Each structure stands twice: as structure tokens, then as C-alpha cells.
């Protein structure tokens, strides 16, 4: 399963690398542009006077004007980067809705990837160490024969129920935290349901 998630993070990686390819700018005759292309640019420019809105969203005069500038520049044959640069020159880098993918600001983009990678490795290591400990005598032999599962679950269930009577008294025991019963806790009827559902599946598997 971790492999699949590695794949997903790889997907995220490639996406960030090919980001400029993601909003394709088809080579068109000079001065012609599509409205969706213009809207794509609108969504990358913040409205300078309204909090946290792009010029695509904001309903104020200046954003109407800026949208018009985007379209004028597109019809003059300028491409997206030129238009963004034009606005950055006038308003500063904070006019861009996302950090530029260059220089020091690359950190903004790489940090999430680093965090997810570290997280994946950590989860893998934790799972591995938990499984290694698992070879201890707690569960002697993992059940591999699917046909045995319904039977073993029936036994588990039986154990739960026979244990439930003395168990109710033991909850007030302050030292009970270390020693845990092997079965599910007695009040947990959902657990019993779950094993029933598994029994159903087990029957299904035959």
C-alpha cells in the first residue's frame, strides 16, 4: 500500500515540475486568445484592495479594470508570464496568488513534498517496528487459512462473552491499564457485530 502512496506523491512531484505545462497555452495566431485562458490568468492575480480575493472573484472597480488589462495585453500578443511580470512590476510580488516557483520561494513548494516524504518514511518505520514486535507470543501464529477465520472468530466471541461477567468489576482497578484482555472490551457490542460481518465475508470466501 505504501508503494501506492509513494506513487501518489511522485504524481504530486511531477505535477509541480510540470506546472507551467498544466495550464497549456496553445500557440495561437498573434493577438487571439480564449476567454478561459484570460480567466486562468485572472485567477493568479490578487485584487490589490480586497482581502484574500483574486481579480477573478472580486467585484470591485479595480478588479474589473485589471481584468480588462489582462485581455488587452493578451490581444497584443503578450503571454501569461509577461502579463504576470507586468503586474508584479507595478504592485510587487504579493500580487501573485501563489509564490513564484523560483529562487527562495521554491521553499514554499518543496516543504509540503518534504513533509509528506518524511511522514511516509515515519509511517513505514513505525509500522515495521510494530510488526516486528508482533512476532512475540501475543498471537502465536497468524491465521493464513481463510477457512479457519469464521471458526476462530466464533471462539473469540465466545471468550468475550464469558469474560464479560468478571470484567465489569475490574474497571475500577487502578492498575488495569498495563494488562489488557486479549479480546474486545465487553461493552463493545460493535466489535461483536464486526466479527459477525467478517463471518459473513468468511462464508462468502468459501
Amino acid at each position, binding site marked *: *500500500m*505504501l508503494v501506492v*502512496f509513494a506513487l*501518489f506523491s511522485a*504524481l*504530486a512531484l511531477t*505535477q*509541480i515540475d510540470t506546472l507551467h505545462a498544466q495550464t497549456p497555452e496553445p500557440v495561437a495566431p498573434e493577438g487571439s486568445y480564449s*476567454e478561459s485562458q484570460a480567466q486562468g490568468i485572472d*485567477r493568479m492575480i*490578487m485584487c490589490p484592495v480586497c*482581502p*484574500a480575493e*483574486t481579480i477573478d472573484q472580486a*467585484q470591485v472597480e479595480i478588479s474589473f479594470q485589471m481584468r480588462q488589462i489582462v485581455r488587452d495585453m493578451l490581444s497584443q500578443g503578450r503571454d501569461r508570464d509577461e502579463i504576470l511580470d507586468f503586474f508584479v512590476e507595478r504592485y*510587487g*510580488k*504579493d500580487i*501573485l*496568488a*501563489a*509564490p513564484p516557483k523560483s529562487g527562495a520561494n521554491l521553499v514554499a*513548494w518543496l516543504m*509540503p513534498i518534504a*513533509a*509528506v516524504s518524511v*511522514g*511516509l518514511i*515515519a*509511517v513505514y518505520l*513505525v*509500522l*515495521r517496528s510494530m*510488526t516486528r514486535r*508482533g512476532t512475540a507470543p*501475543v*498471537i502465536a501464529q*497468524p491465521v493464513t487459512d481463510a477457512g479457519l477465520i469464521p471458526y476462530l472468530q466464533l471462539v473469540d*466471541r465466545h471468550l468475550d*462473552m*464469558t469474560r*464479560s461477567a468478571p470484567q465489569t468489576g475490574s*474497571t475500577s482497578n*487502578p492498575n*488495569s*491499564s*498495563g494488562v*489488557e484482555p486479549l479480546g474486545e*472490551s465487553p*461493552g463493545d457490542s*460493535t466489535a*461483536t*457485530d464486526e466479527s459477525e*460481518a*467478517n463471518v*459473513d*465475508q468468511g*462464508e*462468502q*470466501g468459501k
Partner: protein
Amino acid sequence: MAELGAISLWIALALAAYSTVGSVAGKLRLSPALVESAQSAVYAAALALLVATLSLVIAFISRDFEIAYVAAHSDLAMANRFTWVAFYAGNEGSLLYIGTVLAIMSSIAVWRSPEKFKDAMPYTTAVLMLTLTFFLAVIAVMANPFDKLPFVPLDGEGINPLLTHFGMFFHPPALMAGLIGITLPFAFALGSLLAGKTGDEWVDAGRFWGIISWVLLAAGLLLGSWWAYTILGWGGFWFWDPVENAAFMPWLAITAFIHSVMVQKRRGMFRMWNIVLVNVAFGLALYGMFMNRGGSVPSVHSFGESSLGWIFLIFLAVGVVVPFAIFIWRYPLLKSARNLDSMLSREAAFLVNNLLFLAIAFVTLWGTVYPLLTRLTNDETITVARPFYDQVNGPLMLALVFLMGVGPLIPWRKAGMASVRKTLLPPIIGGLATVGILAALGLHKEYALIGFGLATFVTTGILMEWFRGTRSRHRSSGENYATAFLRLIMANRPRYGGYIVHLSVVMVTLGIVGTSFFSTQVDVVLSPGESVVIENYELVYLGSVETHKGNRTEFISTVQIFRDGDLLETIRPKRDFYPSFNMAATSAAIRSTPVEDLYVVPSENLPDGSVGFRILVNPLIWWMWVAGPVMLVGTVVALWPTRVRAPAPVPTPRRLTPGTRPTTA
């Protein structure tokens, strides 16, 4: 009313403080009487806060403008039903609301606290009441809604027009209740740590309250999106605004928690991890409340801005550092009851699920904090807005949807490769078939293909589970399929309720993928009689009517929708202008179908009678709003109290005895 309100506020503060000290002192001095009186103080504090709330409501209804808060958030023209909204329109009232909700939830938690948790309950009570004391002290000293003006104004300033929308009746209160609700699972976890009860005693109550705050936050977020969609007038529903993020992050953490707590409930594992998660969720909830009250990042929610920021920041620091210190102190006691049997097991899937939820929360936090970092390190600020979150969180969310399809199909403990392959085969075939068919139909946006493929993958998996379970009940007991299906769901509510919620998440996915990749948008200025074509629709603008109504001017435009020459519908999008706020509130006309929404909103009314329209075709967004009720149903199923199962002979275990379960879950 001002006096009654202020006095009951102070009484509640005193009671909360007493309850905090009394619980701990009673526990340490082994005085059950003291513990009991501290618990009664919880109920009394809730009662006092209800009186304070009622006083403010009455002050609003009688338009008691001597009270500064009432004068600032209502006027004579305001309809009485908006009192509900005006109540939390500013800091003072919303804090009072938060305090009251916390007191009520605490009372229920104390009243319903499980017998097995008795030893730790005084500590939990103390944590709850300490939090309440903080809020009440802030209200009483710094943001008192009952403060009076030195004079009585003739009229109030009126309610913010953006708040007078149906969605605003539920979105803010649901979110605020959800944020403060996270205090409860947190208090149960911390109480159990403080008492040294590091087993699973707190898990049932923690899960119950975790799900309550989860559903409140989810409903609040969905309603907020719906509100933004219908009223903000730009055609979208979510734009990663800092305050949206502030509510979204704790929701992510609590979602991770309600999943991983199942592992502890079922298997006695992940004990440390669950406590860490609930601490993280609480920290993020405090952060959310801090952002909402004068946070340092600009946001469309800035109407609640104030100087309360720093005091929340201090509480945030305390609320994060102290619990982690306690956690480290108790660390040696936190041992899992069991070990992991296999990497391929539901336990492991839950851990990866947690990683992904936290990763999204981290990316969101990082995006919120990054502008501040750039401001500190150089002179220019860098903005982090929607494009960043879409690109980074998008793939992570798709990974989560994938896991949502895999996780529930993997059995606990250990899964055999062969059986997993067998269970996963139909969903995989379903998903791949969807991708194939869509690609053959000419859909070439890879993210959309993945999104739709995964949606089918998850749905197939869930339907297979339902079908299998129903069929096996039908075969073994002879119940007809409908009865068998209902009994199947009732037999394991946490599981099948969870599946219903998963289906609602698939619906949300459809809405997000549909609008992110396939929406069409046109901005156009039309004179009466002119028309515009978008996708298959032709829209004819007939004209606008302008009416002056007290505090606003209403512009109602009439637009006819044609498709293939047939008149489908006549719609009337509206734009209200409020001169006193210099603000316009739009109300989009939406022709909504499961296939696509046609969305028409007037963005400006020009003097010559022409109107600037924004028109969108948003595919599949209908599913997003339907997801809300579905999710609610799933949550109710998952939380519905299960009946106690009496010990019975093994061969016939399906005997139920009357009577409800003693615990809250």
C-alpha cells in the same frame, strides 16, 4: 436586561473557576463531596450562561440601543428573525455563544460520563471548566456584550447585509460549536492522562464528542461553501481563505482522530497516537478561533476583527505546550495492548489515512504561515492563495479518496494478499472502466479522469460490501433483501454509517472535480433585449427593476433561459445595494440539476439599464450540496446508541435485550 446579563455572566465565570479548582482539589483530597459540588457547578454555569444569552436576545428584540453591542449590530429596520444572526455578528456575542455551547456540551458530558471513567472525570471536568473560565474571563473583561454606551442612540448601525442570508443562520454557529466542541475529546484524553488512566476508558466518550464536533464542522464548512456560492457572486464555493482554512485544519485533524480512534476501540492500539491527534486538533481549533478574532492574515471574514488576537495567541501557546508536556510526562504508561500483525491490515490503512489528513492540514497551515514568514525575513510579502492549495492539496485529496476505497475492504489484523486482490478486483475494474469510457468519450484532463475513476472505485467498493452483507443475511436467515439490508446496517452502525459518510465524500469529490475542471465562465454586459450564448444555453436579458427598500436598493433582473430554442425557465437574479455599508449583496439565480448548474449573477447595474452579468455553467456541483444531508444521515447512523448485547450461548449470539447502552457511544 444589561444588568441581568452582566451579572449572570460574572456568576458563570465564578462557577466555572470554582468547578475547575473544586474538581482537582476534590480529587486530590479524596473528597467525593467536593467533586460532586464541582460537577453541579458545571450545570449551574450552563444555566447562568443561558440566562445571559437570553438577556442578550431580549435586548436585541427590544432594540435596547443603550447596549453598545445591540446598537452596533442591529437597527430598527431589522426583522426580528435576524436577532439569531445579529447575536454572533461581532466578537462579544460570538464569544458568549461559544461559551454557552461549551458549558452545555460540558454539562452533557459530565452528566453522561461513563462509569468506567469515574476516576478520571474530575480532571476532565477541570480541563473543560478551565477552558470555559478562559472564555468567560475574556468576555467579561475584554469583550463584554453587555457594556453600555454613555448615551442612547436613536437607531442602531444595522446588521451586516452579507449576514442576512439563510446560510448564515447555520454556518457560523455550526462552525463555532464544532471548533469549541473539540475541547471535549481533548478534555477526555487529557483527563485520562492526568489521572494516569492510560488505557481505553476515554475512547468511547472521545469518539462520540469527536464525531459531534466533526459533523458540526463539516456541516458548517459545507454551509459556508453554499453561502459563498449563492451570495458572493463569483461562482465558486471555496477559495482557501485564511479563515476557511482555520476551520478546515481542525476538521482534518478530528477526521483523522475519529478514524484512528476506531483502532484503539477495536484493537487497543495507537494509544499515544490518538492522544497526540486530539491535542493537535485542539491546538488547531484554538488557532482557528485566534484567526477569526484579529488574526494577522487578511481574510474575507475580517468583520470580526479585534485586538483580542494576542490573548488568544497566549491561550493557544498554553493549550499546545501544556498538554504535550503532560503527554510526555505520562508517555511511559502509554503502551499499546497489542502489536501490529501485518503491514497489510486495516490498522495500517488507518495510519496512512492519518498521515494524509495531517499532510493536508500541514500544507494548509504552511500556506497560511508562509506569508508571515516572508514578511519577517525580507521586506516583501508573498501571497499564498488558491493556486497553491489546489496544486498541492489536490493530489493529496485524491490519494485520500483512493484510500477511502481501499481501507474499508482490508480486514483487521492481517489480510491475505489473495483475498485482498479478490475484494479489490470489482472496484478496480469499475474505476478503470470509468476512466476508459470517459477517455473514449474524449475526456483528456488527467486529474479529472483520476477523480472520476476513484469516485467509481470507492462507490463500487461500498456497494459491493452492502450487497455481500445483504446477500449473506438473506441466505442465512431468509430475510428479504430490503429487511436484510436494513438489519445489516443496524447491526454495525459505526461501520455502515461510516460507509454512508464515505458516499457523501464521493459526492463532494464529484462536485469539486466537476467545477474545477469543467466549468465555463462568461462575463458580459447586456442591454435589455440582448442575449448571450454559453455552452448549450442562450440567455436573454429582458430588463431590470429598481426598488428602494429602507436600508437598500434592490435591482431585480429578468433573464430567460433557452436551450435548443425552447424556453426552459425565467430567472430573476438580484443585487442589493446598501448605501450605509457601501456594499452590494448579490443573490445568484441558479438553475440547478444533477448534471450541471446554470449560474447567473449580476455583478454591476449600469445607469443606462444594462447589467454586467457573470454567467457560469458548473457541472456536477449539485452533488456537493446533496452530500450534506447524506453525510448527516451517515453520522446519525454511526452515532446511534447501540443496545447492550447480553451474554448468550455461542451458537445463537443474535439475542438482544432491551435497555440502552450505559456509555455515551
